[in-house]
């Protein structure tokens, strides 16, 4: 028995050592692979963010520090009427564009996921605005929204007197309509990307679940609201979070339509555009860094809030 036990024990110990050696080797290979992107992430994201926090505590010019100022840049930011206006614009923009692009993305995904003729064509068509250059799309949009553009021609066709409308039909040059025009533009251009995320999630849903609900007597609307929608939680979380982050970082369309000054009446001044101004037009790098940190705090808070709202199920991908 003892001989048997010894004979058994030796190979087991050996196997264990071999196993541990293999585990170590696998772990090292794994760490080796992960170390490259992680070091890039640490240097390009975390270290730079740390450096931004550092210079935000200084009066930092083009060539470096002019002296330590503590939290003065943050105090200035919180009392800067144009920055507060930029926050308001960015929040209004995000609050409207995110639900719009999410709803539109989901609608388009459901449409192309249905077994309809030419689904692939529609999928490509709906996605096209997302891959086109935002500068090109915005330039096109500026033409469409000009006083003699297509949009006003449509209104004229509907017997609307354009000359008495906002800034005589110059929608992007009126502080009451400029931001909302950009919201419309971006809801359209980003909905294709959102459609793809929803489509990916939709195609992972097991048909057996919807069929079971149908067998149990649920109609189409009930299947959608009580089966499909909860199963799309991971996509909801991803779409809303990435949409929110993108929306709060609006820059290119704002500068193209309103110029660097975000005119008229700072209606197109967004947080990122204001950071650009602080950096490249006022040469206040320390102040720009402080504004960047404020933007990060807002984005981080919003993301955590969304995580809370959608729950850990969405985060982990389980329901």
């Amino acid at each position, binding site marked *: 028995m003892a001989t048997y036990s010894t004979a058994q024990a030796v190979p087991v110990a050996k196997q264990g050592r071999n196993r541990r050696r293999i585990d170590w080797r696998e772990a090292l290979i794994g760490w080796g692979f992960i170390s490259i992107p992680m070091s890039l992430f640490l240097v390009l994201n975390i270290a730079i963010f740390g450096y931004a926090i550092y210079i935000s505590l200084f009066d930092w010019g*083009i060539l470096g520090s002019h002296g330590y100022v503590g939290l003065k840049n943050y105090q200035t930011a919180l009392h800067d009427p144009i920055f507060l206006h930029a926050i308001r614009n960015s929040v209004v923009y995000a609050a409207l564009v995110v639900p719009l692009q999410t709803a539109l993305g989901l609608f388009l995904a459901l449409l192309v996921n249905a077994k309809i003729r030419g689904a692939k064509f529609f999928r490509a068509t709906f996605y096209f605005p997302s891959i086109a250059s935002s500068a090109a799309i915005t330039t096109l949009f500026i033409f469409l929204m*000009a006083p003699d553009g297509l949009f006003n021609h449509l209104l004229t066709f509907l017997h609307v007197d354009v000359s008495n409308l906002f*800034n005589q039909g110059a929608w992007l*040059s009126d*502080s009451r309509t400029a931001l909302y025009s950009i919201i419309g533009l971006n809801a359209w251009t980003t909905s294709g990307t959102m459609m793809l995320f929803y489509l990916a999630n939709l195609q992972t849903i097991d048909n057996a679940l919807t069929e079971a609900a149908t067998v149990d007597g649920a109609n189409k609307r009930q299947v959608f609201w009580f089966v499909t929608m909860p199963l799309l939680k991971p996509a909801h979380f991803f779409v809303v979070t990435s949409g929110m982050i993108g929306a709060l970082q609006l820059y290119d369309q704002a500068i193209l339509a309103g110029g660097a*000054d975000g005119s*008229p009446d700072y209606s197109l001044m967004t947080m990122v555009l204001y950071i650009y101004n602080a*950096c*490249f037009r006022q040469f206040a790098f320390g102040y720009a860094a402080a504004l960047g940190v404020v933007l990060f705090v807002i984005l981080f808070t919003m993301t955590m809030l969304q995580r809370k709202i959608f729950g850990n199920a969405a985060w982990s991908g389980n329901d």
Partner: protein
Amino acid sequence: MRGIKSIVASVAAIGVVLPLSLTPAQAAGTVTTITLATWGSSPSETAALNDAIATFEARYPTIKVQQIVDTDHSAQMVARFASHTPPDVFYVDAGVAQDWARQGVLLDLTPYIQKSGFSLAPFNKSYLKPFEANGAIYGLPKDANPLVLEGNRQLMARAKIKTLPVTIAQFNADAKRLLAKKITPMCVDADINRLGAYFASFGGGIANSGGTKSAMASKGTRAALTWEMTNFRTGAFRTPAQLSAGWAGEAFGKGKCAFTMEGAWLDPFLKDSFPSVYKTMIKGPLPRAKKNASLAFTVSYSIGAESVNKDAAWSFIQYMTGSRGMTVWTSYGVAIPSRSDVVTPLGYKVNGQVAQAPTTVTTPAFVGWSKVIDAFNNTAKAQIQNKNFKVAAAVSAIISATNGAWPSA
């Protein structure tokens, strides 16, 4: 021994022959390549610059110029300054010169000017001023570009107008006739760099004579703004956006307005894009209220405090802002000489006269000027967006916002 002797002889022979095969500059080992950062521009302007550089390189064979054309010059220059790698020479817009000088990124040219005996006397003082700070000179104006009045003769003829308005009263009368014919009289943006041109004419100004304190609340400036806002109210002035154009020159070229007020940059644009309008265009000074006045814009050639080839860069600036280089550069008509000893190019007589007039001033140059521009433009554009806006309230709002953005000390 014989082998060593032959090697020594061969090396000596190479040492004698090689220099003969090189150009004198290469032989002296002094060919220097300097970098020149500019912004992109029209084909005419590019041709003018290339020609001027070619004449410089012919005159200074030991210096070669490598051009860098920026898409966002100011932002790209700031990035280069921050990374301590500025080009040797670069354009500096008058509007940012004081900011950049304060940041310590520009080289004081005074020692080079004194050492080389380069005379500043021929320069119009107004064009030098934006680049001077605390007794130092941080750039020399490469040219000047004042605002003048341009008229579309075909549209003017439809309202039976034969000549450009010389006074504000004449402009008002012409505007009425044009509006009666459903022609927009003037396309001008609600921008301090355009509307500000009339302030001095009405007895006011953007800033005081020292260029440091706001003159926005002065009687003259208020009168000018009242006249301008009244014109926006009546439709005598319309912005490019209201006329579906990117800028006033485009609206003018498309025949959407009878007059506009731009600089010499309008001519090559019209010549290329709207040749029929260009052929019939007439030019004159801006209509005057109490006196003739205009705003002018200028750009300098400057050297970075950390530029590598400072001496060669100075040679380049000295040539390009000297009478010879400036003659070549402005001969294409894209800009007007900033020196009184350089002849105004053919076809730009009016621009030249306005550029040299003592009443033509550049926009103020001080640290924080961009904030003042933003405040004025944002408020002015917002005030006129409502067709039935109140002129007095609009004027007060513009003055208040502009003064609010003025640096406190």
